[in-house]
């Protein structure tokens, strides 16, 4: 109806939205088959962590932004060490990159013609 199409694929967001709503409705219907007679606030609704005590949610438990992707940054630490070292913050280095890219572009363009 109003979708866009590349040469070999199509995307119709209205159809996607209808499908998404349909799936939500199916999920809601399945949820309504559940038990309704449970007691809130007792052990029936508490999270179960292998029987361990779960601490109360507080600001001290909040995972800070720095630590959220620790594993991924550690895994790519070789890349990050080199690339972050290149971002020196010194203005002369920025201009050196500019002159360098200019030189490379000239070399490529002169080689090609």
């Amino acid at each position, binding site marked *: 109806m109003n979708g866009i199409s590349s040469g070999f694929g199509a995307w119709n967001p209205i159809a996607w939205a209808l499908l998404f709503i349909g799936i939500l409705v199916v999920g809601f219907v399945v949820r309504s088959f559940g038990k309704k007679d449970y007691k809130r606030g007792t052990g029936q609704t508490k999270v179960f962590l292998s029987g361990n005590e779960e601490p109360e949610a507080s600001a001290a438990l909040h995972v800070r932004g720095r630590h959220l992707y620790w594993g991924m940054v550690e895994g790519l630490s070789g890349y990050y060490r080199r690339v972050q070292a290149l971002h*020196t913050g010194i203005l*002369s280095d920025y*201009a050196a990159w500019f002159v360098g890219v200019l030189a490379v572009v000239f070399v490529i363009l002169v080689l090609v013609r």
Partner: protein
Amino acid sequence: MNIGNLPFVVAALLVAFGIYTFLYKRNLIKLVIGVSLVETGVNLFLVALGYRTAGIAPIYTFAPAAKQMVLPTPQALTLTSIVIGLATTALLLSFAVFIHRHYGTLDVRKVKELRG
């Protein structure tokens, strides 16, 4: 006397000196001087584009007849460029003053709190 390509060579040298100054000097004011050198080189290049050998100034009033005039358009371009250069140099220098006030130094290798 035919000056040949001398203005263009000088303009290229000025641009080269300006880039060298910008890359290798430490003081922020020297970096601004480097930018100013590049700008002077480009302005000289623009004016030299319009020069015709033994040409006179491009003014019609009281112009001697049958004489070739230099091109006026590059002169207009250069004037515009000089004015733009004035504004950029003024802004750069005022930023340098504020940097000195905040950081206490004008060394470009020490003014790197924004990095990474």
